[in-house]
C-alpha cells in the first residue's frame, strides 16, 4: 500500500497473462519480511526442543540411511564414507522437500487471508521457501560436524557453492508456485504431495552414487535439477571433480522450472479467490 499520494491505480478485468509487478512487490517488502518471520517464529512454538527439531529430523534420517544403505546394503559410494556421503545430500534435500511441501500448500492454508486482504499473491508460496532456510542453516551444523570428524579438506570448489544454493531454492520455489496455484483448485495436490516427495528422494543420487547410473542414461538423468543440486553440493564440499556436463542441464532446468512456475502462478492468480 505504500504507494505515493498522487498514485492512480486502476482495477480492471485481468488479462489472460498476469504481468509481474516488481514495483508492487517492493512496496510490500515489510509484509513479506513479517510473514517469513511469523513462519519461523510460529513453527516451533510450544515445543520443548524448539529449533533442535531442525537438527533431529535430518540427523535421524542420516543415521538410518547410513545403517541400512551403508552398513547393511553396503552401497558403493566411490570410496567416500557413507555418513559423509549421505549427509552432504540429505541436508539440502531436507530443505528442498520441506520448502516444496509448505510452498505448495501455502495458498490453501492461507485461504482465510487470501479472501480478506489484498497483497501480491506471490508472497504466499515465497514465504516458506525463505522461512525454511532457517532450518537449513541450523541443520548445517550436522554437516560441519561430520566434515570435521572426517577431516575433509576444503578446496576452491567451495566458491561454486552459491550457484547450488540458489538452485536449491529455485526448484521448490518454481514447483511450489505451480502446485500452490493448482492446489487451490484441486485439493488432490494435498494428498499427492507427501507421497510424491517421498518418491522423489530416489530420483536423485542422495542415497546412492550417480556413477552407478549407466553412462548412456546419465545425460538424461542429469536433467533432474535435484541431481544437479545434490551433485553440486557433494563436489563443492567434498572437493570432488566438478562434472559440469552432468550439472549444467539440471541447473538450466531449475531456472526454467522457476520461470514456468512463476508464469503459471501469475496466469492463475486472477481466479484464486473465486474458487477457494
Amino acid at each position, binding site marked *: *500500500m*505504500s*504507494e505515493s*499520494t*498522487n*498514485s*492512480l*491505480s*486502476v*482495477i*480492471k*478485468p*485481468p488479462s489472460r497473462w498476469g504481468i509481474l509487478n516488481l514495483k508492487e512487490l517492493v512496496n510490500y517488502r*515489510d*509484509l513479506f*519480511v*513479517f*510473514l517469513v518471520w*511469523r513462519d519461523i*517464529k*510460529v513453527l516451533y*512454538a*510450544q515445543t520443548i526442543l524448539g529449533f533442535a527439531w531442525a537438527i533431529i529430523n535430518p540427523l535421524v534420517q542420516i543415521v538410518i540411511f547410513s545403517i541400512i544403505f551403508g552398513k547393511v546394503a553396503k552401497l558403493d559410494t566411490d570410496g567416500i564414507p557413507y555418513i559423509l556421503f549421505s549427509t552432504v545430500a540429505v541436508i539440502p534435500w531436507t530443505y528442498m522437500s520441506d520448502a516444496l511441501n509448505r510452498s505448495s500448500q501455502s495458498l490453501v492454508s492461507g485461504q*482465510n*487471508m*487470501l*479472501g*480478506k*486482504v*489484498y*497483497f501480491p499473491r506471490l508472497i504466499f508460496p515465497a514465504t516458506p521457501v525463505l522461512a525454511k532456510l532457517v532450518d537449513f542453516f541450523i541443520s548445517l551444523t550436522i554437516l560441519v560436524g561430520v566434515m570435521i570428524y572426517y577431516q575433509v579438506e576444503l578446496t576452491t570448489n567451495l566458491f561454486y557453492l552459491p550457484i547450488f544454493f540458489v538452485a536449491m531454492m529455485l526448484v521448490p520455489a518454481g514447483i511450489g508456485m505451480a502446485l500452490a496455484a493448482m492446489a487451490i*483448485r*484441486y485439493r488432490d495436490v494435498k494428498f499427492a504431495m507427501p507421497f510424491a516427495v517421498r518418491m522423489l528422494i530416489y530420483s536423485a543420487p542422495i542415497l546412492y552414487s550417480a556413477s552407478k547410473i549407466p553412462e548412456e542414461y546419465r545425460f538424461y538423468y542429469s536433467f533432474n535439477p535435484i541431481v544437479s543440486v545434490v551433485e553440486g553440493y557433494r563436489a563443492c564440499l567434498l572437493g570432488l571433480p566438478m562434472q559440469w556436463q552432468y550439472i549444467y542441464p539440471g541447473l538450466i532446468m531449475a531456472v526454467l522450472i522457476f520461470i514456468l512456475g512463476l508464469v503459471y502462478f501469475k496466469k492463475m492468480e*486472477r*481466479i484464486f*479467490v*473465486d*474458487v477457494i
Partner: protein
Amino acid sequence: MNSTMPAIEAENISKIYRLGVKLKRDENIVSSIGRMLKSPISNYKKYRSLYKFEDVDQSKREDTEDILWALKNVSFKLDHGEVVGLIGHNGAGKSTLLKVISRITPPSHGHINMRGRVASLLEVGTGFHPELTGRENVYLNGTVLGMSRREIDSKFDEIVAFSEVEDFLDTPVKRYSSGMRVRLAFSVAAHLEPEILIVDEVLAVGDASFQNKCLSKMEDVGGAGRTVMFVSHNMAAVTRLCKRGLLIGHGQLLMDGSMHKVVDAYLHDGHGTSSSKEWDGDGPQGEYAELKSVRVIDQKGEVSDVFDIRETVSLEVTFNVSKTGRQLLPHFHVFNQEGIHLFPLLAPAEYRGDSFHSTGEHIYVAKIPGNYLAEGMHYVTCSLMTMSPDRAQFVADQVIGFQVVDSDELDTVRAGWGGKLRGAVRPMFAWEKLS
C-alpha cells in the same frame, strides 16, 4: 493531489460467478458405479468450469440456473473526503463490491480508478496468529493491512493505549479473552491512515463502549478528509457516520443519495413500510420455518411508525412452519440509533416446552411497555431459533424500525422538563420519599 478528480471512480463494474454444476441422481446401482468410475473426469470438468465463462452470453447480464451476476453494471463516483455508507440485504452484492474495490477479486467487466493510498478492512485481525504475542501481532496485522514498519513504530504506543491491553502485550494472543483480541485487532485497524478506507461490517464486535470508541475514531477518520466507504447492517451507525448512501440490491445500484433517504428506502424496499415488512415465500428461511412478516403494532392493533413514549410497542412476528419436528423460539433484539443493543426479547420459558410446532402459520407478539424506551429511532432484529440443537432458522438484521417521540405531559420520566435527557432507555421506576 488533484482534488477535483474523484477518489474512486467505478464504471460499469460487473462480476460473474458460476455456482457449480448440479449433481445428477442415479437411478440404480449400475449407473451409480459407472458414474463413480467416470467421476474424476466429471470432477475435473466441474472444477475447471468454475472459472471458465466462454459458454456464457455475457452481454445480457442475466442470471441462469448456474450463473450468478453478483454485480451488474455498478457505477459511482466518490470525491475525496466523502464518507459513504453502502447498504443492502444479504446477498445483494455488497461484499462482492467491497472485494472488487479492495482488489481481492478482479471484476469481470468494467474498471475502477482509485486515486490515493487504499486500505481495506474486511475483517478485524486478519493475519493474527495465536502463538504470537500481542506486540508481534500488532506489527504483523499492521503490515497485512498495508502499514509500513516505520508507520507502526510511530503509532505503536497509541495503538496499545487505544486497545487497553497494555499489560498483556508480551503474552501470546491465544491466552487473550476474545474481547481483548478483538480490541487489539480493532485498534490496529483504527490507526490506519490511508486516503481511501474501505470498511466492512467490523463494528459488530466488542462491547458497546468499545464499539462507540471505534465509531468515534471512524468519525475522526472521516473528518480528517479521508474517503471512507462503510458497509453495515447497523442502520444507526451508518446514518451517524455517513452523509451519503448507496443502496445495492440484486447486484445493482438501486439508489445513490443522502444517507437518510437511502436508509428509508432500504427499510421500505417493496416489503411494506419501515415498521412493517412482509414476505411472500421469499423471506429469510431455514430448514423448518420461513419468515412471513415482522411488524410494529400500536395499542389500536395497527401498524405504526411513530410511538408516543407512553405507548406500548408491540413487536409481532409471523412465520410459516414448513416442516414439523422442532420446537421453535422467536427472539427480538432492540437497537437504538447509536447502534447499541438495548435488550433482547427472548421467548419466555413457558414456550420452551417439548411439543413441536405444527406446520402452518404461527404468530407471536412481544410487548414493550410505555415509558420504557428513550426517544429516537429504534431498530429491531428478529430471529427464530430451534431448540436442541440451537440453530438459527433465520436472522433478519434490523429489518424494521420505529420512532419514539417524547411527550411534555407529566406522566413521563421527563415530566414536563424541557432539557436534554441522556440514557439509552428511559424507564419510569418507582420513587419514595422516606422523610
